């Protein structure tokens, strides 16, 4: 089934919670190197779709294929080590650690794999990891707060931190769940710039977003979900003019 340049294939996935069909017959292909946006009203099943991709939820039927390999059933850390990284809708960071440590931890995962008993060399002598972490902290604009404790950040800053945590792993597939929610206009724009800058470089991005400005600035292709079904899928201009999409957003679903 895998076509060479399809990096992610969500194949006929179905997922329900009790009687609620969160995802029905979702079939989605993401091309390598593109930015693929998933939009849809609240409760459409967007986050659930990402949860299925990273192994947080198991689909009832169907499978997720990454880079020609079925990843459904694999453990979250295995999926990450294959190069699939997720940035969560509610920021998931290490609140007790400093910003720099927050970014160094994923950098270690990338370099050392899922387990390495590295107890002799102090962290302070890991200059390579440190510089890399600082580089990405700088790119998201948080370098000057590197020694602050992550819990003290605002919601928007936590997102930027999590973005740096994802990018430092140089993922092949980056899944972003509403990366700019809670950010100021200014930070949103710089996040767009950052995501544009890292376009290509072998990284494919799937981005869930409510902010249409962000979507149309970044997306090469848009998939629209409503009530767990794909109602439209195509290039931005095509989707924008699609009457079904207008209806789903304006017609009071949910």
């Amino acid at each position: 089934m895998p076509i060479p340049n399809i990096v992610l294939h969500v194949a006929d996935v179905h997922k329900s919670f009790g009687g609620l069909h969160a995802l029905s017959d979702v079939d989605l292909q993401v091309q390598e190197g593109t930015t693929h946006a998933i939009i849809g009203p609240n409760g459409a099943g967007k986050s659930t779709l990402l949860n299925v991709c990273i192994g947080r939820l198991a689909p009832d039927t169907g499978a997720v294929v990454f880079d020609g390999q079925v990843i459904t059933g694999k453990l979250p850390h295995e999926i990450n080590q294959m190069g699939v990284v997720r940035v969560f809708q509610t920021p998931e960071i290490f609140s007790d650690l400093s910003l720099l440590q927050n970014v160094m931890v994923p950098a270690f995962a990338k370099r050392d794999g899922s387990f390495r008993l590295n107890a002799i060399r102090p962290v302070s002598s890991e200059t390579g990891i440190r510089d890399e972490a600082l580089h990405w902290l700088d790119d998201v604009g948080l370098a000057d707060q590197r020694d602050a404790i992550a819990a003290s950040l605002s919601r928007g800053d936590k997102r930027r931190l999590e973005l740096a945590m994802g990018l430092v792993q140089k993922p092949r597939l980056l899944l972003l769940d509403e990366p700019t929610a809670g950010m100021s206009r200014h930070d949103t724009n710089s996040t767009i710039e950052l995501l544009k800058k890292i376009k290509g470089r072998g990284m494919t991005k799937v981005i869930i977003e409510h902010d249409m400005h962000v979507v149309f600035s970044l997306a090469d292709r848009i998939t629209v979900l409503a009530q767990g079904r794909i109602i439209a899928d195509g290039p931005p201009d095509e989707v924008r003019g699609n009457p079904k999409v207008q209806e789903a957003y304006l017609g009071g679903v949910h």
Partner: protein
Amino acid sequence: MLNLSRSDWLLLAGFSAVVLCLPVILEPIGAAYPALMQKFCIFGIFAIGFNILFGLTGYLSFGHAAFLGIGSYAAVWSFKLFTMNAIPAIIMAVFFAAAFALIVGYVCLRRSGIYFSILTLAFAQMSYNLVYSVLTPLTNGETGLQLTLNDPRIVDALFYEPAAGLPRVDLFGLFISGGGYAGFYLCAAMLIICFIIALLIFRSPFGMMLRAIKSNQNRMRYTGFNTRPYLLAAFVISGMYAGLAGGLMAATDPLVGAERMQWTASGEVVLMTILGGVGTLVGPVLGAAVIKYFENIFSSFGDATLHDVFGFLPDAVEQPVVSFLVLFVGDGWNLTLGVVFMLIVIFLPGGIMEGLRRIWNLFGRRPGDGKKVLAAHPRPAE
């Protein structure tokens, strides 16, 4: 060889100096005798190890005394079967504790939070009961395991004629058991080595991963880490510290009974760590020393001592005061400990280290008290 920052070298130097000079430092408070000082060191080791698990990963074990007991039994068997030299005994103690910790950790780490604590407690109580019952041939049940005149001691037998009476534990001619200074200095040296290892772990990427697991284990998984082996490694390391402590207990006094594995002993190391300061390097050692020091004082108090102390009061007052306070001394020492512990948890959750830091901030920065500052301010970015 050791790749430490300047402040860590200072911390290590300060710590070692204090430990090695204990006989001088403790003289004024009447605690400068080897039997008590070696207790400080042994429980310090126990608490440092416990803190590697609890302080770094947040996993609270209520069964660590089992490893202490296993270390002691292994050491006494080494004395009985092979030689009175302390080194093989200590190695055996650490080895058996590690092996047991591997099994216990493998099972208990399948759960976290309160379920993990209960599993460890269940394991420890199970071991305690086994020691009394099924394992009597190995542990000598209620009587406890001790040296006898008919022990084979095969290695020693090759080299010496057995002297009359029970032999003493030795380290190349120095007597370790019997409450001499050699015993204390062996324990002190081990404490310093254990402190160095803990320092390395705290500063290493491994330590950072453990802290990250404590902070958000789920995130660690989605960050690409298999958290189980990290936790298991921390668990086994802390079990080995407990085994070493148990081995040293046996080396300084070669007999062991099952009560060493009882849940109260597991609870005690939790108290020491929390009292001193969870997650700090020096705190657990301070906590251990403080508890053992006051245990030593309070548990020797009795009716008579209290009457002496309060003799200046009129009889009508003295009688009720003494009969109230007597609840808290002697066998009632645990009551005092409980009250102190509650006060600490409520008013000073960071323990003694937090208290020192507050005092420090109150008086501003004074030079020449490097150790406390360094320990009290773990650098946020390592």
